[in-house]
């Protein structure tokens, strides 16, 4: 699974990760997002400075990727056809809290189609499926932490929480950094969407600036004329200490 080429000549880092700022992340118990009520731990988390079990983590090489993995417009479509909807590119950098690019990291994406319909057997929304749209994509960041995907802009989507709750247009994403403690899942929203500030899931995040960092910016400079608009979306993972400050008996 580990592909040395992915990480180029950089020496792997072996330090522990910076403490997570849990005042910025959503707490577990957020009753206006109803499902969290019975799915939130009630006891305090046990704090643990990282051991090797959390400092290490799986790394995936570009060799796992198929040619269309980062192109949701075509990766489920019949030959010669494509998904229906607003064609967009989402691109950006994967960084850590120190501002360093994170190379060779797997980012996975999933989303509804242009009408807000997910391709999932538990989903019953009346908006139609698009026969040429599956809804999953993935990419491995390059040497500087850059990534890009091609997709269609997802539609808003109603859900049984409040009697009339709708999700803003969003793309789910899942990231592996280089250590298992960096594992993160979140959601990307789109600039200017008035639904963002009404959403009980968005509002689980207590910090307005943290929500704004989940909103992708329309980027007309990166837009391809007569083809696709572009949205820029940078993602930040936890930084880590330099191992020169560590005092470990084992390891390096």
């Amino acid at each position: 699974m580990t592909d040395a080429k992915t990480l180029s000549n950089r020496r792997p880092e072996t330090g522990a990760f910076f403490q997570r700022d849990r005042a910025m992340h959503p707490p577990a118990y957020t009753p206006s997002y109803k499902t969290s009520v019975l799915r939130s731990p009630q006891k305090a988390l046990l704090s643990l400075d990282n051991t090797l079990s959390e400092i290490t983590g799986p790394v995936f090489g570009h060799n796992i990727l198929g040619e269309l993995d980062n192109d949701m417009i075509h990766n489920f479509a019949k030959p010669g056809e494509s998904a229906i909807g607003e064609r967009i590119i989402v691109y950006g950098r994967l960084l850590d809290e120190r501002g360093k690019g994170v190379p060779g990291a797997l980012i996975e994406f999933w989303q509804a189609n242009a009408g807000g319909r997910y391709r999932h057997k538990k989903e019953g929304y009346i908006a139609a499926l698009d026969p040429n749209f599956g809804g999953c994509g993935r990419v491995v960041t390059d040497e500087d932490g850059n990534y890009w995907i091609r997709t269609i802009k997802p539609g808003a989507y109603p859900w049984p929480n409040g009697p009339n709750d709708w999700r803003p247009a969003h793309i789910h994403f899942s990231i592996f950094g280089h250590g298992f403690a960096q594992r993160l899942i979140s959601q990307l929203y789109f600039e200017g969407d008035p639904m963002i500030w009404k959403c009980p899931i968005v509002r689980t995040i207590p910090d307005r600036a943290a929500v704004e960092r989940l909103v992708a910016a329309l980027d007309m400079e990166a837009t391809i004329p007569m083809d696709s608009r572009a949205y820029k979306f940078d993602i930040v993972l936890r930084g880590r200490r330099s191992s020169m400050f560590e005092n470990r008996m084992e390891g390096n």
Partner: protein
Amino acid sequence: MVQSLDRLKETASQTAGPYVHIGLTPNFCDIPGVYPVDLGDTMVNDKTRGERIKVKMRVIDGADTPLKDALIEIWQADADGLHNSPSEMRGAADPNFTGWGRKPTDMTTGECVFETIKPGRVPFKDGRKMAPHLTVWIVARGINIGLHTRMYFSDEEKANDEDPVLARIEHRRRVPTLIAQRDGDTYTFDIHLQGEKETVFFDI
């Protein structure tokens, strides 16, 4: 004034939602042909060293109901206690063992089963050996930020007794929430999200 530390803020977490399978296990949820296999589905092959085991897990909510839409990932050392990771500097891990697995819980029973090997012991920061364990990460609808826990093994009583992480649990009656029970080659590990039997979760 002093120099800025120039730190960025981590991207905020959001729930994985009920349709996490579309992105992370598309073949499991009937989206064939995009990826050849679901990543993390297979951890071992016929050359993997170590004792073969099955680990059966469930995630149970505050109303004693198993989650049928959870997704669990595990990360562990190989039989010699080495991780298949570039950050592992102590030696090369078993090339026939990924160390990482990912399973959705069954949409009817809420169960998932990892076929893996029993991990070797990994040193704690001060050099003491930790007991064999899996690092476990759980996401689902209703879980706003992925939950980290550990799974230890019921037949490693002596190692568990000297484990420096288990030793930090103040309320000793909560220690068994991290210990999977062995029956034949299968360990059963129920993760309780809240209530009397709430599993110990970590801020790592």
